[in-house]
Protein backbone atom coordinates (compact mmCIF):
# COMPACT_ATOMS: atom_id res chain seq x y z
CA UNK A 1 0.00 0.00 0.00
CA UNK A 2 1.86 3.04 -1.16
CA UNK A 3 2.13 5.86 -3.63
CA UNK A 4 4.46 5.09 -6.49
CA UNK A 5 5.66 7.46 -9.19
CA UNK A 6 7.12 5.67 -12.16
CA UNK A 7 9.18 7.81 -14.56
CA UNK A 8 6.86 10.79 -14.31
CA UNK A 9 7.51 13.68 -16.67
CA UNK A 10 5.32 16.75 -16.90
CA UNK A 11 5.59 19.42 -19.58
CA UNK A 12 3.53 22.47 -20.30
CA UNK A 13 3.48 24.97 -23.10
CA UNK A 14 3.74 22.05 -25.52
CA UNK A 15 3.92 23.01 -29.16
CA UNK A 16 5.13 26.53 -28.39
CA UNK A 17 8.55 28.02 -27.91
CA UNK A 18 7.87 28.23 -24.22
CA UNK A 19 7.93 24.49 -23.52
CA UNK A 20 8.80 23.91 -19.88
CA UNK A 21 9.63 20.55 -18.45
CA UNK A 22 8.47 20.99 -14.89
CA UNK A 23 9.11 17.38 -13.91
CA UNK A 24 11.80 15.32 -15.50
CA UNK A 25 11.63 11.54 -15.14
CA UNK A 26 10.77 11.41 -11.45
CA UNK A 27 10.51 8.01 -9.83
CA UNK A 28 9.63 7.75 -6.14
CA UNK A 29 8.16 5.17 -3.80
CA UNK A 30 6.29 6.61 -0.84
CA UNK A 31 5.53 3.83 1.62
CA UNK A 32 2.71 4.01 4.16
CA UNK A 33 3.30 5.96 7.33
CA UNK A 34 6.49 7.72 6.25
CA UNK A 35 7.16 11.35 7.11
CA UNK A 36 8.80 12.96 4.10
CA UNK A 37 10.23 16.43 3.60
CA UNK A 38 10.08 17.57 -0.01
CA UNK A 39 12.58 20.40 -0.42
CA UNK A 40 13.53 22.64 -3.30
CA UNK A 41 13.93 26.29 -4.18
CA UNK A 42 11.11 28.24 -5.80
CA UNK A 43 10.43 26.80 -9.22
CA UNK A 44 12.15 23.48 -8.61
CA UNK A 45 9.00 21.50 -9.35
CA UNK A 46 7.98 20.46 -5.85
CA UNK A 47 4.46 21.89 -6.01
CA UNK A 48 3.99 20.40 -9.48
CA UNK A 49 5.05 17.05 -8.06
CA UNK A 50 2.53 17.08 -5.21
CA UNK A 51 -0.27 18.10 -7.54
CA UNK A 52 0.36 14.85 -9.39
CA UNK A 53 -0.10 12.82 -6.24
CA UNK A 54 -3.83 13.46 -6.01
CA UNK A 55 -4.47 13.61 -9.72
CA UNK A 56 -4.78 17.39 -10.12
CA UNK A 57 -2.19 17.25 -12.86
CA UNK A 58 -1.76 14.41 -15.31
CA UNK A 59 1.78 13.41 -16.27
CA UNK A 60 2.87 13.94 -19.85
CA UNK A 61 4.48 10.55 -19.60
CA UNK A 62 4.89 8.00 -16.83
CA UNK A 63 2.45 6.55 -14.31
CA UNK A 64 1.31 7.10 -10.76
CA UNK A 65 0.02 4.22 -8.68
CA UNK A 66 -1.99 4.42 -5.51
CA UNK A 67 -2.30 1.14 -3.64
CA UNK A 68 -1.27 -0.64 -6.79
CA UNK A 69 -3.81 0.99 -9.09
CA UNK A 70 -2.95 3.46 -11.84
CA UNK A 71 -4.73 6.67 -10.84
CA UNK A 72 -5.32 7.65 -14.44
CA UNK A 73 -7.07 4.40 -15.36
CA UNK A 74 -10.52 5.10 -16.70
CA UNK A 75 -12.32 3.18 -13.95
CA UNK A 76 -10.26 4.63 -11.12
CA UNK A 77 -12.26 7.04 -8.98
CA UNK A 78 -10.46 10.40 -8.72
CA UNK A 79 -12.95 11.48 -6.12
CA UNK A 80 -12.00 8.64 -3.83
CA UNK A 81 -8.34 9.35 -4.47
CA UNK A 82 -8.77 12.95 -3.41
CA UNK A 83 -10.44 11.93 -0.19
CA UNK A 84 -7.52 9.61 0.54
CA UNK A 85 -4.71 11.91 -0.55
CA UNK A 86 -5.40 15.24 1.12
CA UNK A 87 -3.56 18.28 -0.17
CA UNK A 88 -3.24 21.45 1.91
CA UNK A 89 -2.21 24.24 -0.44
CA UNK A 90 0.05 27.21 0.26
CA UNK A 91 -1.75 29.84 2.31
CA UNK A 92 -4.76 27.50 2.72
CA UNK A 93 -6.55 30.10 4.81
CA UNK A 94 -7.22 32.03 1.60
CA UNK A 95 -9.59 29.23 0.67
CA UNK A 96 -11.83 29.45 3.72
CA UNK A 97 -15.12 30.65 2.34
CA UNK A 98 -18.03 29.63 4.57
CA UNK A 99 -19.73 31.89 7.06
CA UNK A 100 -18.36 29.99 10.04
CA UNK A 101 -15.45 27.69 10.71
CA UNK A 102 -17.52 24.59 11.44
CA UNK A 103 -19.50 24.78 8.18
CA UNK A 104 -16.27 25.31 6.29
CA UNK A 105 -14.74 22.14 7.70
CA UNK A 106 -17.96 20.25 6.83
CA UNK A 107 -17.59 21.10 3.15
CA UNK A 108 -15.15 18.28 2.29
CA UNK A 109 -16.91 15.36 3.98
CA UNK A 110 -20.30 16.64 2.80
CA UNK A 111 -19.07 16.38 -0.77
CA UNK A 112 -18.07 12.78 -0.14
CA UNK A 113 -21.80 12.07 0.19
CA UNK A 114 -21.67 11.11 3.87
CA UNK A 115 -24.77 11.53 5.99
CA UNK A 116 -25.16 14.69 8.01
CA UNK A 117 -24.37 13.13 11.35
CA UNK A 118 -21.13 11.62 10.11
CA UNK A 119 -20.15 14.89 8.45
CA UNK A 120 -20.63 16.83 11.65
CA UNK A 121 -18.85 14.22 13.72
CA UNK A 122 -15.85 14.34 11.41
CA UNK A 123 -15.77 18.13 11.36
CA UNK A 124 -15.89 18.19 15.12
CA UNK A 125 -13.10 15.62 15.46
CA UNK A 126 -10.93 17.41 12.91
CA UNK A 127 -11.29 20.76 14.66
CA UNK A 128 -10.44 19.09 17.96
CA UNK A 129 -7.39 17.46 16.40
CA UNK A 130 -5.93 20.71 15.18
CA UNK A 131 -6.45 22.17 18.63
CA UNK A 132 -8.79 25.03 17.85
CA UNK A 133 -10.63 26.26 20.95
CA UNK A 134 -14.38 25.45 20.98
CA UNK A 135 -15.47 29.08 20.93
CA UNK A 136 -13.87 29.48 17.47
CA UNK A 137 -16.11 26.85 15.88
CA UNK A 138 -19.01 29.14 15.04
CA UNK A 139 -17.03 32.29 14.38
CA UNK A 140 -16.51 33.65 10.87
CA UNK A 141 -13.10 32.41 9.67
CA UNK A 142 -11.94 36.01 9.23
CA UNK A 143 -12.10 36.62 12.97
CA UNK A 144 -9.40 34.06 13.65
CA UNK A 145 -5.69 34.82 13.86
CA UNK A 146 -3.37 33.78 11.02
CA UNK A 147 -2.24 30.62 12.80
CA UNK A 148 -5.80 29.67 13.75
CA UNK A 149 -7.06 30.16 10.20
CA UNK A 150 -4.36 27.86 8.96
CA UNK A 151 -5.39 25.24 11.51
CA UNK A 152 -9.01 25.55 10.41
CA UNK A 153 -7.95 25.01 6.79
CA UNK A 154 -5.94 21.94 7.75
CA UNK A 155 -8.97 20.63 9.66
CA UNK A 156 -10.97 20.92 6.43
CA UNK A 157 -8.65 18.40 4.82
CA UNK A 158 -8.40 16.16 7.90
CA UNK A 159 -12.18 15.83 7.99
CA UNK A 160 -11.91 13.83 4.77
CA UNK A 161 -9.88 11.27 6.78
CA UNK A 162 -7.00 11.11 4.32
CA UNK A 163 -4.41 8.34 4.41
CA UNK A 164 -1.81 10.64 2.91
CA UNK A 165 -1.55 14.25 4.02
CA UNK A 166 0.41 16.67 1.86
CA UNK A 167 1.15 20.17 3.13
CA UNK A 168 2.60 22.76 0.76
CA UNK A 169 4.65 25.31 2.76
CA UNK A 170 2.45 25.06 5.85
CA UNK A 171 4.57 27.50 7.87
CA UNK A 172 4.92 30.34 5.33
CA UNK A 173 4.25 33.73 6.87
CA UNK A 174 3.85 32.51 10.45
CA UNK A 175 5.86 33.79 13.41
CA UNK A 176 8.45 31.43 14.96
CA UNK A 177 6.09 30.10 17.62
CA UNK A 178 3.37 29.62 15.02
CA UNK A 179 5.83 27.70 12.86
CA UNK A 180 6.71 25.35 15.73
CA UNK A 181 3.05 24.87 16.61
CA UNK A 182 2.04 23.87 13.08
CA UNK A 183 4.99 21.50 12.73
CA UNK A 184 4.30 19.93 16.13
CA UNK A 185 0.67 19.55 15.12
CA UNK A 186 1.61 17.78 11.90
CA UNK A 187 4.00 15.48 13.77
CA UNK A 188 1.36 14.57 16.34
CA UNK A 189 -1.32 14.00 13.69
CA UNK A 190 0.96 11.61 11.96
CA UNK A 191 1.68 9.79 15.20
CA UNK A 192 -1.98 9.51 16.21
CA UNK A 193 -3.48 8.67 12.83
CA UNK A 194 -0.55 6.79 11.32
CA UNK A 195 -0.86 8.91 8.18
CA UNK A 196 1.75 9.29 5.53
CA UNK A 197 2.85 12.92 5.61
CA UNK A 198 4.60 14.88 2.90
CA UNK A 199 5.83 18.29 3.98
CA UNK A 200 6.77 20.64 1.16
CA UNK A 201 9.15 23.37 2.23
CA UNK A 202 12.19 25.35 1.28
CA UNK A 203 13.43 25.50 4.81
CA UNK A 204 15.75 22.73 5.96
CA UNK A 205 15.54 24.09 9.49
CA UNK A 206 11.79 23.43 9.43
CA UNK A 207 11.91 19.84 8.38
CA UNK A 208 15.25 18.63 9.77
CA UNK A 209 14.03 17.64 13.19
CA UNK A 210 10.80 16.04 12.10
CA UNK A 211 11.05 13.94 8.97
CA UNK A 212 12.32 10.40 8.27
CA UNK A 213 13.37 11.15 4.75
CA UNK A 214 14.20 14.17 2.63
CA UNK A 215 13.63 14.40 -1.10
CA UNK A 216 15.46 17.35 -2.67
CA UNK A 217 14.19 18.65 -6.01
CA UNK A 218 16.13 20.76 -8.48
CA UNK A 219 15.07 21.71 -12.00
CA UNK A 220 12.28 19.16 -12.05
CA UNK A 221 14.43 16.22 -11.00
CA UNK A 222 15.09 14.52 -7.70
CA UNK A 223 18.69 15.27 -6.75
CA UNK A 224 18.85 13.79 -3.25
CA UNK A 225 16.59 11.24 -1.62
CA UNK A 226 17.86 10.02 1.72
CA UNK A 227 17.75 10.35 5.49
CA UNK A 228 18.19 13.94 6.67
CA UNK A 229 21.71 13.37 7.98
CA UNK A 230 22.88 11.95 4.69
CA UNK A 231 21.34 14.81 2.74
CA UNK A 232 22.88 17.51 4.94
CA UNK A 233 26.35 16.12 4.31
CA UNK A 234 26.05 17.80 0.88
CA UNK A 235 26.29 21.35 2.22
CA UNK A 236 28.04 22.95 -0.75
CA UNK A 237 25.87 21.24 -3.32
CA UNK A 238 22.70 22.29 -1.53
CA UNK A 239 23.85 25.89 -1.29
CA UNK A 240 24.65 25.87 -4.99
CA UNK A 241 20.99 25.14 -5.74
CA UNK A 242 19.64 27.90 -3.51
CA UNK A 243 19.03 25.83 -0.38
CA UNK A 244 20.78 25.80 2.95
CA UNK A 245 21.55 23.24 5.61
CA UNK A 246 20.17 23.77 9.13
CA UNK A 247 22.23 26.37 10.99
CA UNK A 248 23.30 23.76 13.54
CA UNK A 249 24.73 21.61 10.76
CA UNK A 250 26.42 24.73 9.44
CA UNK A 251 28.14 25.27 12.80
CA UNK A 252 29.43 21.71 12.84
CA UNK A 253 30.80 22.09 9.32
CA UNK A 254 32.55 25.32 10.35
CA UNK A 255 34.06 23.74 13.44
CA UNK A 256 35.35 20.89 11.37
CA UNK A 257 36.90 23.33 8.95
CA UNK A 258 38.58 25.11 11.84
CA UNK A 259 40.45 21.86 12.36
CA UNK A 260 38.46 20.80 15.36
CA UNK A 261 38.03 17.12 14.93
CA UNK A 262 37.19 14.22 12.79
CA UNK A 263 33.77 15.45 13.68
CA UNK A 264 30.26 14.36 13.22
CA UNK A 265 28.78 16.87 10.78
CA UNK A 266 25.52 14.97 10.50
CA UNK A 267 24.31 16.59 13.72
CA UNK A 268 20.93 18.27 13.27
CA UNK A 269 19.45 19.27 16.60
CA UNK A 270 20.72 21.74 19.20
CA UNK A 271 20.77 18.94 21.74
CA UNK A 272 23.02 16.73 19.61
CA UNK A 273 25.32 19.63 18.81
CA UNK A 274 25.64 20.54 22.47
CA UNK A 275 26.62 16.99 23.40
CA UNK A 276 29.10 16.72 20.57
CA UNK A 277 30.80 20.05 21.37
CA UNK A 278 31.05 19.27 25.08
CA UNK A 279 32.43 15.82 24.31
CA UNK A 280 35.10 17.29 22.08
CA UNK A 281 36.05 19.99 24.59
CA UNK A 282 36.30 17.57 27.50
CA UNK A 283 38.49 15.31 25.45
CA UNK A 284 40.80 18.32 25.16
Amino acid sequence: MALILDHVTYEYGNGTELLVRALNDVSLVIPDGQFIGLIGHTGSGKSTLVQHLNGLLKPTSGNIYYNGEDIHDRDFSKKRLRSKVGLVFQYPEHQLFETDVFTDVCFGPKNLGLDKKEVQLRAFQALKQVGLPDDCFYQPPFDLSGGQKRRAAIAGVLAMKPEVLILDEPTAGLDPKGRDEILDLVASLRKENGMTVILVSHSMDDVAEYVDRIVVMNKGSVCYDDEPKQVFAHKEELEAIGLSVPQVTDIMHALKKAGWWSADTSVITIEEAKKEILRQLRKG
Partner: protein
Amino acid sequence: MKIIKTKDLVFEYIRRDEEGNVEGITTAVDHVDLDVNPGDFIAVLGHNGSGKSTLAKHFNAILTPTEGTVWVDGMETEDQEKIWDIRQRAGMVFQNPDNQIIGQVVEEDVGFGPENMGVPTKEIWERVEESLKAVGMYRYRKFAPNKLSGGQKQRVSIAGVLAMHPKCIVLDEPTAMLDPGGRKEVIRAVRALNDVERVTVILITHYMEEIIHADKVFVMDGGRIAMQGTPREIFSQVEKLKELRLDVPKVTLLAHELKKEGLPLPEGILTVKELVDTLDALRTGEDRWR
Protein backbone atom coordinates in the same frame (compact mmCIF):
# COMPACT_ATOMS: atom_id res chain seq x y z
CA MET B 1 16.52 65.66 12.94
CA LYS B 2 15.02 62.21 13.24
CA ILE B 3 13.98 60.64 9.95
CA ILE B 4 11.00 59.00 11.63
CA LYS B 5 9.56 59.89 14.98
CA THR B 6 6.37 58.76 16.65
CA LYS B 7 4.95 60.19 19.82
CA ASP B 8 2.16 58.49 21.78
CA LEU B 9 1.07 56.81 18.57
CA VAL B 10 -2.25 54.98 18.94
CA PHE B 11 -4.14 53.28 16.14
CA GLU B 12 -7.57 51.83 16.74
CA TYR B 13 -10.05 50.29 14.39
CA ILE B 14 -13.67 49.37 14.83
CA ARG B 15 -14.75 45.79 14.31
CA ARG B 16 -18.23 45.31 12.91
CA ASP B 17 -20.41 42.22 12.54
CA GLU B 18 -22.23 41.27 9.33
CA GLU B 19 -25.03 43.78 9.90
CA GLY B 20 -22.53 46.54 10.39
CA ASN B 21 -23.09 46.84 14.12
CA VAL B 22 -20.05 47.74 16.14
CA GLU B 23 -18.68 44.67 17.89
CA GLY B 24 -15.73 46.23 19.54
CA ILE B 25 -12.63 48.33 19.13
CA THR B 26 -9.19 46.87 18.58
CA THR B 27 -6.13 48.84 19.54
CA ALA B 28 -3.52 47.69 17.03
CA VAL B 29 -0.86 50.19 18.05
CA ASP B 30 -0.85 51.29 21.65
CA HIS B 31 1.13 54.35 22.68
CA VAL B 32 4.30 53.82 20.72
CA ASP B 33 7.22 56.24 21.03
CA LEU B 34 9.95 55.56 18.58
CA ASP B 35 12.87 57.47 17.05
CA VAL B 36 14.80 56.53 13.96
CA ASN B 37 18.03 58.33 13.14
CA PRO B 38 19.01 58.95 9.53
CA GLY B 39 21.18 56.12 8.20
CA ASP B 40 20.11 53.59 10.81
CA PHE B 41 19.27 49.98 10.10
CA ILE B 42 16.24 49.27 12.26
CA ALA B 43 14.57 45.90 12.67
CA VAL B 44 11.07 45.33 13.97
CA LEU B 45 10.14 41.90 15.31
CA GLY B 46 6.89 40.62 16.69
CA HIS B 47 4.52 37.69 16.39
CA ASN B 48 1.56 37.61 13.98
CA GLY B 49 -0.93 40.20 15.13
CA SER B 50 1.52 42.12 17.32
CA GLY B 51 0.91 45.34 15.42
CA LYS B 52 4.18 45.66 13.55
CA SER B 53 2.66 45.98 10.06
CA THR B 54 0.11 48.48 11.30
CA LEU B 55 2.96 50.48 12.79
CA ALA B 56 4.93 50.30 9.56
CA LYS B 57 1.99 51.60 7.55
CA HIS B 58 2.18 54.80 9.59
CA PHE B 59 5.71 55.44 8.34
CA ASN B 60 4.54 56.48 4.91
CA ALA B 61 1.07 57.69 5.69
CA ILE B 62 -0.89 54.70 4.43
CA LEU B 63 -2.46 54.90 7.87
CA THR B 64 -2.70 57.96 10.05
CA PRO B 65 -2.82 57.88 13.84
CA THR B 66 -6.01 57.71 15.89
CA GLU B 67 -4.09 59.53 18.62
CA GLY B 68 -0.56 60.87 18.80
CA THR B 69 1.69 62.04 15.99
CA VAL B 70 4.05 60.59 13.40
CA TRP B 71 6.71 62.74 11.75
CA VAL B 72 8.53 61.64 8.62
CA ASP B 73 11.57 63.76 7.95
CA GLY B 74 9.95 66.48 10.03
CA MET B 75 6.56 66.35 8.27
CA GLU B 76 3.42 65.32 10.09
CA THR B 77 1.70 62.41 8.33
CA GLU B 78 -1.72 63.89 9.02
CA ASP B 79 -0.91 66.87 6.85
CA GLN B 80 -2.74 65.89 3.62
CA GLU B 81 -0.75 68.38 1.56
CA LYS B 82 2.51 66.68 2.45
CA ILE B 83 1.35 63.16 1.69
CA TRP B 84 3.24 62.78 -1.61
CA ASP B 85 6.39 64.27 -0.13
CA ILE B 86 6.14 61.82 2.72
CA ARG B 87 5.69 58.84 0.43
CA GLN B 88 8.65 59.94 -1.62
CA ARG B 89 10.83 60.23 1.49
CA ALA B 90 9.77 56.89 2.97
CA GLY B 91 9.16 54.13 0.44
CA MET B 92 7.59 50.79 1.25
CA VAL B 93 8.19 47.23 0.06
CA PHE B 94 5.62 44.56 0.82
CA GLN B 95 5.60 40.82 1.34
CA ASN B 96 4.33 39.50 -1.96
CA PRO B 97 6.54 40.32 -4.95
CA ASP B 98 3.71 39.59 -7.37
CA ASN B 99 1.49 42.29 -5.91
CA GLN B 100 3.80 45.23 -6.42
CA ILE B 101 5.24 44.93 -9.91
CA ILE B 102 3.17 46.53 -12.64
CA GLY B 103 5.57 47.09 -15.54
CA GLN B 104 5.88 44.73 -18.51
CA VAL B 105 9.63 45.17 -18.46
CA VAL B 106 11.86 45.51 -15.40
CA GLU B 107 13.27 48.97 -16.23
CA GLU B 108 9.80 50.29 -17.00
CA ASP B 109 8.55 49.12 -13.64
CA VAL B 110 11.42 50.81 -11.82
CA GLY B 111 10.77 54.02 -13.76
CA PHE B 112 7.12 54.15 -12.70
CA GLY B 113 7.74 55.93 -9.39
CA PRO B 114 9.96 58.77 -10.63
CA GLU B 115 7.72 59.20 -13.68
CA ASN B 116 4.74 59.78 -11.41
CA MET B 117 6.77 62.34 -9.51
CA GLY B 118 7.29 64.27 -12.73
CA VAL B 119 11.02 63.65 -12.96
CA PRO B 120 12.41 64.62 -16.41
CA THR B 121 12.77 61.63 -18.76
CA LYS B 122 16.54 61.76 -18.98
CA GLU B 123 16.85 61.73 -15.23
CA ILE B 124 14.33 58.88 -14.93
CA TRP B 125 16.65 56.69 -16.98
CA GLU B 126 19.63 57.67 -14.86
CA ARG B 127 17.70 56.82 -11.73
CA VAL B 128 16.50 53.48 -13.15
CA GLU B 129 20.08 52.56 -14.00
CA GLU B 130 21.56 53.48 -10.64
CA SER B 131 18.72 51.81 -8.71
CA LEU B 132 18.95 48.55 -10.62
CA LYS B 133 22.71 48.57 -10.16
CA ALA B 134 22.33 49.15 -6.42
CA VAL B 135 20.29 45.95 -6.02
CA GLY B 136 22.32 43.98 -8.54
CA MET B 137 19.54 43.67 -11.11
CA TYR B 138 20.89 45.86 -13.93
CA ARG B 139 21.61 42.80 -16.01
CA TYR B 140 17.89 41.98 -16.00
CA ARG B 141 16.64 45.44 -17.01
CA LYS B 142 15.08 44.20 -20.26
CA PHE B 143 13.47 41.13 -18.71
CA ALA B 144 9.75 40.61 -18.22
CA PRO B 145 9.17 40.48 -14.43
CA ASN B 146 7.32 37.16 -14.70
CA LYS B 147 10.56 35.54 -15.83
CA LEU B 148 12.29 36.44 -12.59
CA SER B 149 12.57 34.46 -9.37
CA GLY B 150 10.90 35.68 -6.18
CA GLY B 151 14.13 37.12 -4.80
CA GLN B 152 14.82 38.94 -8.06
CA LYS B 153 11.30 40.36 -8.14
CA GLN B 154 11.70 41.66 -4.60
CA ARG B 155 14.97 43.33 -5.58
CA VAL B 156 13.17 44.97 -8.51
CA SER B 157 10.52 46.19 -6.06
CA ILE B 158 13.26 47.65 -3.90
CA ALA B 159 14.84 49.33 -6.94
CA GLY B 160 11.42 50.80 -7.76
CA VAL B 161 11.34 52.48 -4.36
CA LEU B 162 14.98 53.49 -4.58
CA ALA B 163 14.41 55.29 -7.89
CA MET B 164 12.22 57.76 -5.99
CA HIS B 165 15.33 58.72 -3.99
CA PRO B 166 13.80 58.05 -0.60
CA LYS B 167 15.64 58.79 2.60
CA CYS B 168 14.09 55.79 4.23
CA ILE B 169 12.83 52.43 3.05
CA VAL B 170 10.36 50.33 5.01
CA LEU B 171 10.28 46.61 4.21
CA ASP B 172 7.35 44.62 5.57
CA GLU B 173 8.39 40.97 5.63
CA PRO B 174 10.08 41.19 2.24
CA THR B 175 11.45 37.64 2.46
CA ALA B 176 8.45 35.76 3.85
CA MET B 177 7.59 34.14 0.52
CA LEU B 178 11.14 33.47 -0.68
CA ASP B 179 13.41 30.44 -0.57
CA PRO B 180 16.75 30.61 1.30
CA GLY B 181 18.66 31.75 -1.80
CA GLY B 182 16.15 34.50 -2.52
CA ARG B 183 16.18 35.58 1.10
CA LYS B 184 19.95 35.98 1.10
CA GLU B 185 19.85 38.04 -2.14
CA VAL B 186 17.27 40.44 -0.74
CA ILE B 187 18.93 40.90 2.63
CA ARG B 188 22.29 41.45 0.95
CA ALA B 189 20.73 44.14 -1.27
CA VAL B 190 19.09 45.80 1.71
CA ARG B 191 22.32 45.87 3.68
CA ALA B 192 24.17 47.35 0.72
CA LEU B 193 21.61 50.15 0.47
CA ASN B 194 22.17 50.94 4.08
CA ASP B 195 25.97 50.65 4.06
CA VAL B 196 26.74 52.23 0.72
CA GLU B 197 23.85 54.55 -0.09
CA ARG B 198 23.18 55.46 3.56
CA VAL B 199 19.45 54.90 3.11
CA THR B 200 17.66 54.42 6.42
CA VAL B 201 16.22 50.90 6.57
CA ILE B 202 13.30 49.64 8.62
CA LEU B 203 13.04 45.89 8.23
CA ILE B 204 10.09 43.92 9.56
CA THR B 205 10.64 40.19 9.62
CA HIS B 206 9.99 36.83 11.25
CA TYR B 207 13.42 35.52 10.43
CA MET B 208 15.78 36.14 13.33
CA GLU B 209 18.95 35.57 11.30
CA GLU B 210 18.12 38.53 9.07
CA ILE B 211 18.44 41.18 11.72
CA ILE B 212 21.76 40.39 13.34
CA HIS B 213 23.36 43.33 11.52
CA ALA B 214 20.73 45.86 12.57
CA ASP B 215 21.76 48.90 14.61
CA LYS B 216 18.67 48.63 16.73
CA VAL B 217 15.83 46.15 17.19
CA PHE B 218 12.30 46.86 18.39
CA VAL B 219 10.13 43.96 19.51
CA MET B 220 6.38 44.52 19.37
CA ASP B 221 3.77 42.76 21.47
CA GLY B 222 0.11 43.68 21.81
CA GLY B 223 0.66 46.94 19.93
CA ARG B 224 3.37 48.10 22.29
CA ILE B 225 7.14 48.08 22.13
CA ALA B 226 8.02 45.22 24.45
CA MET B 227 11.80 45.26 24.02
CA GLN B 228 14.38 47.43 22.32
CA GLY B 229 18.13 47.31 22.00
CA THR B 230 20.97 46.07 19.84
CA PRO B 231 20.59 42.59 18.35
CA ARG B 232 23.05 41.32 20.94
CA GLU B 233 21.05 42.78 23.81
CA ILE B 234 17.80 41.43 22.40
CA PHE B 235 19.05 37.95 21.61
CA SER B 236 20.63 37.62 25.04
CA GLN B 237 17.12 37.29 26.38
CA VAL B 238 16.25 33.90 25.00
CA GLU B 239 13.48 33.11 27.47
CA LYS B 240 11.76 36.47 27.14
CA LEU B 241 11.72 36.22 23.34
CA LYS B 242 10.12 32.80 23.56
CA GLU B 243 7.38 34.24 25.74
CA LEU B 244 6.73 36.74 22.96
CA ARG B 245 6.30 33.87 20.47
CA LEU B 246 9.66 34.65 18.90
CA ASP B 247 12.91 32.84 18.66
CA VAL B 248 16.64 33.46 18.50
CA PRO B 249 18.95 32.33 15.71
CA LYS B 250 19.88 28.66 16.17
CA VAL B 251 23.52 29.60 16.73
CA THR B 252 22.53 31.94 19.59
CA LEU B 253 20.38 29.20 21.08
CA LEU B 254 23.20 26.68 20.91
CA ALA B 255 25.58 29.15 22.60
CA HIS B 256 22.95 29.77 25.26
CA GLU B 257 22.61 26.04 25.91
CA LEU B 258 26.38 25.56 26.06
CA LYS B 259 26.62 28.41 28.51
CA LYS B 260 24.05 26.73 30.71
CA GLU B 261 26.38 23.72 30.77
CA GLY B 262 29.08 25.94 32.25
CA LEU B 263 31.06 27.01 29.19
CA PRO B 264 32.35 30.58 29.63
CA LEU B 265 30.66 32.03 26.55
CA PRO B 266 29.32 35.57 26.24
CA GLU B 267 25.53 35.98 25.87
CA GLY B 268 24.06 36.94 22.55
CA ILE B 269 26.43 35.28 20.10
CA LEU B 270 24.99 36.09 16.69
CA THR B 271 26.95 34.43 13.93
CA VAL B 272 28.37 31.00 13.20
CA LYS B 273 31.83 32.55 12.88
CA GLU B 274 31.61 34.16 16.30
CA LEU B 275 30.65 30.89 17.96
CA VAL B 276 33.28 28.87 16.14
CA ASP B 277 36.01 31.40 17.00
CA THR B 278 34.99 31.52 20.65
CA LEU B 279 34.86 27.74 20.95
CA ASP B 280 38.17 27.43 19.17
CA ALA B 281 39.77 29.88 21.57
CA LEU B 282 38.43 27.83 24.47
CA ARG B 283 39.91 24.66 23.11
CA THR B 284 43.33 25.96 22.31
CA GLY B 285 43.57 28.76 24.89
CA GLU B 286 45.75 28.63 27.97
CA ASP B 287 42.85 28.83 30.39
CA ARG B 288 41.57 25.62 29.04
CA TRP B 289 38.13 24.65 30.07
CA ARG B 290 37.54 21.22 31.57
